């Protein structure tokens, strides 16, 4: 593509290094991580500071620490996920935990075992940390009430996906220096997206201006109470923004008549060469993955220098290591 360069294969040198953040005695105040909504700005920065150190750790030859040695981490996934699950798995292993992946397929749910039954069974296996993804909003909250261990929400329905928001924040903070004062546009299916919800809450907490862009059928009806400005015209929405967060468009959305077709969606809400020009020249493009090339994002933009999509994946492991360590502060020692 003319005028655009391929992203360098080498990892980008971070703008801010660990030393830039004075080591504080950060104490994470909760037993669980169920959502961003319960976190303060200080909690978020504390977790991001911890994650900075893990970025360094993860770039070493010996990536292993023994913070969680002897601990058991269970990844309980009721929805298929490759990225989030492997990211948590690596994070747990790098901290020395024993990691068990449990993918609960539709079939076992159809056998009638309820979420609580599953929780009770797992509880008897004495895990220390449970990472859960479930198709119903509030499932992580429900589990946390019934389990003796720490619970991390890895996505519950259309509610929250806190580690995704944290890794996005870490990526932005390293690229832009700070989050306060930035204008961030989140584009796509806001209504059904837990990633959007967690990001909106986090970015507001840290003082960014948040815009959401999408057709009205995919936007919440009451955007203003969420602290966001809603746009149905992508160009106006992208005008002068520092960060563009694209969301994945689920194929089911066509079936349920929320949008007519992927090609019409791409025409109006796909990030392409023309639309991306409305954002600031130094803006960055993010996507939680996996990307639908040609549906929500033009293929070459995904690979352009502005794109930090692969960096997000790297930050994902660091953030999850930080969260696991933060929760480990509260695990019983005897």
């Amino acid at each position, binding site marked *: 593509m003319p005028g655009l360069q391929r992203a360098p294969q080498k990892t980008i040198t971070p703008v801010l290094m660990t030393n830039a953040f004075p080591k504080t005695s950060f104490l994470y105040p909760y037993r669980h991580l169920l959502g961003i909504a319960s976190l303060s700005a200080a909690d978020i920065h504390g977790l991001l500071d911890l994650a900075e150190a893990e970025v360094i750790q993860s770039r070493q030859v010996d990536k292993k620490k023994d913070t969680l040695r002897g601990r058991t981490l269970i990844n309980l996934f009721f929805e298929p996920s490759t990225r989030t699950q492997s990211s948590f798995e690596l994070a747990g292993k790098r901290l020395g935990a024993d990691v068990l992946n449990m993918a609960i397929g539709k079939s076992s749910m159809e056998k009638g075992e309820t979420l609580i039954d599953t929780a009770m069974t797992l509880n008897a296996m004495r895990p220390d940390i449970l990472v859960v993804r479930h198709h119903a909003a509030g499932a992580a909250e429900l589990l946390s009430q019934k389990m003796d261990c720490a619970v991390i929400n890895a996505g519950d329905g*259309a509610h929250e996906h806190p580690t995704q928001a944290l890794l996005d924040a870490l990526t932005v903070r390293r690229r832009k220096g700070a989050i306060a004062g930035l204008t961030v546009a989140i584009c796509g299916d806001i209504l059904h997206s837990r990633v959007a919800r967690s990001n909106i809450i986090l970015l507001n907490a840290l003082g960014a201006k948040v815009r959401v862009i999408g057709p009205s059928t995919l936007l919440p*009806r009451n955007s203003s109470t969420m602290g966001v400005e809603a746009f149905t015209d992508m160009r106006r929405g992208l005008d002068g923004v520092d960060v563009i967060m694209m969301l994945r468009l689920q194929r089911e959305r066509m079936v349920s008549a929320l949008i007519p077709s992927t090609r019409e969606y791409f025409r109006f809400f796909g990030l392409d060469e023309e639309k991306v020009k409305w954002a600031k020249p130094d803006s960055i493009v993010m996507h939680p993955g996996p990307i639908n090339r040609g549906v929500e994002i033009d293929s070459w933009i995904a690979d352009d220098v502005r794109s930090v999509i692969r960096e997000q994946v790297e930050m994902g492991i660091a953030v999850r290591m930080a969260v696991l360590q933060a929760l480990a502060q509260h695990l019983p020692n005897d």
Partner: protein
Amino acid sequence: MTDQTPLLLVNARIVCPASGRDEHGGALIENGAIGDFGAHLRAAAIKGRGIDCGGAVLTPGIIDMQTFTGEPGAEHRETLATASRSAAAGGVTTFIVMPDTQPVIDDAAMVDYIERAARATAIVNVHPMAALTKRLEGREMAEIGLLQAAGAVAFTNGRASIADARIMRLLLDYAKDLNALVVHYPEEQTLARGAVMNDGEIATRLGLPGSACEAETIIVDRDVRLAALTGGRYHASTISCAASLDVIASAKRRGLRVTCGAAIANLALTEADVGPYRTYFKVKPPLRTEDERRALVAGVASGLIDVIVSNHDPQDVDGKRLPFEEAAYGAIGLETMLPAALELHLRGEIELLPLLAAMSHRPAALLGLQGGALTLGSPADLTLVSLNAPWRVEAKKLRSKSKNAVFDERIFQARVLKTFVAGKMVYEDAASCL
């Protein structure tokens, strides 16, 4: 058992919304009926048995026109006997059971069964409301005439709204010939598809699919038009928003035979009570915003809303201990309806007379039942309730078999002290034996 001995209740605040009476006085129960009442009955008049009511409110027994039970079919959730004990403890002397049972009350034999089972096991008056359509499927008309002859007091499709407008028209038309009341839960099912709570800020934050008020108002509007077309008697069972009230108001202004009810949960609670996915607050109609709640209370005060119902719907723990989207709808309410309603009065939101009217003589008039008013010679169905005897609701201690109570841990100022059905005391508050 000593019903033959006259019983005199004195030093009570006699409140009868039917006559607008609100005075200090007493009431005499004789042979299970109201022998006398009024300001002239004082302690000095006590010859046989007498009770000093300590200034508590004595009012016609509360009538609840929407109670779901599990009998027959789901007796583990609720039986007529347990529901009736719950009712008695809540000052409810008559409740109407909904036809959503297994099998459905869509056959005269089922009406007969309910009446016999109630006579044998229930301690308050129980009447069945029968199904409008066979198996409540919304397709074939139930035997409205035969069901009415067997004793069904009204006809409803229960929890399910009738989607087919033509069927609704025919039902209203046919029921009109029998002067039968059509009670309908208004919900446009396609608009509310998948929704589990009110469509608003809380739903957005929780990531839950919401149902807009329009899903209700569209059907209320449709039904009112069909009531106008047919001349049938129509009652919207539970409305939850101001827009639906507007439709009802305009229907009433035009003189249509249209009435409506509201559930106590919608009068007392809002969507904010759902909080962190509390499934006990998953009810139909959904809890709405504070603005809508206030509009409903104002509707009761003005008489635009004719009745308040408990919408008592017992659900077992397994149905509620699930993620919010998958959990069952419903909350129990027989035992807490009156205290929760009186709380609205004590907070200054509504006068006592219109509030009690919506739970006594208005439902009685709508359903053609005895009671709901203080009349000489009528069965002594009476509720004695103190407005100043605070208590804390403990779901565990409620008499319903199921414990899905939205008012768990609430402190109410109003407490039911005694409940009489046909002169017999069916409930007496243990802590405050007078």
